[in-house]
């Protein structure tokens, strides 16, 4: 069936090709990663080191590291304290639109899923932003499905301009763009870009991204680099854990970020660790073999490998997990989250992308952070 579909490795017309060898580097290392070969002694050696090599990072992601979760947690906590102190950043996402041209088998917004589609008008965007700002938040993440003919570049740009009136930090989690388009959105007010590769296994990638521009693997892979070339200050990485082989995908995610930081030393690096969640018309969607234990292993390995990187913990996880992982490894969390279109000032206008597990308000999250001896941070960025 695959041969009738678009070749996932071939750029479509209009997609910018940049000069970069990072994808080949990452994919080669991941292909060679045989995590079953790692032993206790590899894990112990890794944990003794002040600075971990790629090999050490691979050891921490291997099954051999599972018995060392407690040791990893202690190390991770110490690193988190050293680099971030008590600070926990707060933000919330705003979905502008759930129209989507892609058919991604794991996502509630996919083109064939029968859900209520909607897109906010500029007035509604402003209303929503105003309502969110009233909760005290100063950081916003703007999201859309991938459908430039609905939520096009200019529409997103105009929304960002409004966002900068209310928020000091504006990030985007939208479809990948060319570097000049990133430059335009940067000018409109966005400084941070999240693009999740979902899985770094090309076979799996084409199996779950059946239709639409998202099917083009390398264009997505190079999005962070194009964003930085377009002047963005920070980029976020993530694999959708449970989709493919999570150990390989976590290794790939870490290496992707590692090489980007090496090539662009000024770039602020962060990770997200989403797991598969149920969505409307697919209640059985689940993270397969990635249980909380494995998820924590991945999070801790990211922290120990790149102690300076931000880690965001998703509302896909339950409150009890999120509360314990902040300060231990995570440095940022969302609060007052809605994953449908709008929903902050009025009823949701369009259906949700997935089911969230933590619907606490900003105040509730704030209280929880304080009660754990940590410091909620609303503002941590100046646009200059």
């Amino acid at each position, binding site marked *: 069936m695959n041969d009738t579909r678009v070749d996932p490795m071939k750029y479509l017309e209009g997609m910018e090709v940049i000069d970069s060898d990072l994808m080949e580097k990452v994919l080669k290392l991941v292909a060679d990663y045989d995590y079953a070969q790692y032993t206790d002694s590899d894990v112990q050696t890794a944990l003794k080191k002040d600075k971990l090599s790629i090999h050490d990072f691979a050891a921490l992601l291997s099954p051999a590291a599972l018995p060392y979760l407690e040791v990893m947690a202690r190390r991770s906590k110490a690193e988190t*304290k*050293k*680099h*971030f*102190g*008590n*600070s926990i950043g707060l933000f919330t996402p705003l979905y502008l639109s759930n129209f989507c041209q892609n058919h991604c088998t794991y996502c509630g917004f996919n083109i064939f899923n029968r859900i209520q589609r909607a897109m906010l008008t500029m007035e509604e965007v402003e209303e929503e932003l105003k309502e969110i700002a009233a909760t*005290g938040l*100063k950081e916003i993440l703007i999201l859309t499905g991938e459908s430039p003919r609905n939520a096009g570049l200019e529409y997103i740009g105009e929304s960002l301009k409004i966002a900068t009136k209310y928020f*000091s930090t504006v990030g985007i989690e939208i479809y990948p763009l060319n570097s000049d388009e990133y430059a335009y959105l940067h000018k409109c007010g966005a400084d941070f870009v999240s693009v999740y590769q979902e899985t770094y296994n090309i076979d799996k990638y084409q199996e779950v991204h059946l239709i639409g521009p998202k099917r083009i693997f390398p264009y997505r892979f190079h999005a962070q680099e194009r964003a930085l070339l377009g002047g963005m200050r920070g980029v976020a990485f993530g694999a959708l854990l449970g989709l493919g082989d999570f150990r390989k995908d976590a290794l790939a995610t870490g290496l992707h970020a590692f090489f980007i*930081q090496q090539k662009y*030393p*000024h*770039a*602020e*690096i962060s990770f997200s660790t989403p797991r598969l969640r149920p969505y409307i018309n697919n209640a059985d969607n689940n993270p397969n073999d990635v249980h909380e234990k494995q998820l924590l292993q991945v999070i801790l390995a990211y922290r120990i490998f790149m102690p*300076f990187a931000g880690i965001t913990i998703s509302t896909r996880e339950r409150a009890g997990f999120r509360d314990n992982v902040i300060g231990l490894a995570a440095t940022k969390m969302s609060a007052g989250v809605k994953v449908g279109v709008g929903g902050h000032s009025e009823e949701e206008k369009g259906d949700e992308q997935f089911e969230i597990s933590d619907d606490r308000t900003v105040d509730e999250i*704030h209280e929880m952070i*304080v009660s754990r*001896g*940590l*410091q*909620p*941070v*609303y*503002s*941590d*960025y*100046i646009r*200059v």
Partner: protein
Amino acid sequence: MSDKLIIGGHEFGSRFILGSGKFSLELIKAAIENGQVEMITLALRRANVGGEENILDYLPKDITLLPNTSGARNADEAVRIARLSREIGCGDFVKVEVISDSKYLLPDNYETIKATEILANEGFVVMPYMYPDLNVARSLVNAGAAAVMPLGAPIGSNKGLCTKEFIQILVDEIELPIIVDAGIGRPSQACEAMEMGAAAVMCNTAIATANDVEQMAKAFKQAIEAGRAAYLAGLGRVLNFGAEASSPLTGFLED
């Protein structure tokens, strides 16, 4: 005896400068009191005037604010942040911090000199955070800096005085106060910096992340005072080239 720290014509009784970025905000006041701190840094990006958890709301009014330009990647951005800081009423002091490496957070000395010159000309009391290099320190003096703030080790590393030899050179050669900033993880290291002749020490992570913030602030205060007293008293001679030979090498001389 009056032993004041003088920065840009301003006098301070305390030689303990506190960083604020890694604190739980409600503990800052106790740290200031227990450490008898008179100057505190704050990242301007953390100021959230009129908003939630505005760091400025947690700082006593009589303390000298030392706003830093963290987040700036070049001189131009540092200058803009400093101007913004003055506009919102944070005063004329500024700690220039220009960092274009997200991994080690090491300062960019070249851009730091440029920003220092511009801001000094605009009347700021400029305290640049720098990698301890004598030539750069001299350029900072010429650019109009009010103090020089070399790093002991990477920010947050708690590794202490990794750059000790080079900080000593700055202490010996530069007229301005040399304030050791970053990397100090324990009171003994702060004491050591002061014994060497540093004019002050800046500290954040070690205190903010201590189990008992008040006690740790107190410990740092005492260590800094002890180090200062030792420096003023004049440390006993430490011979650099081993022990003196008991039978003198020049004993053969006759007339």
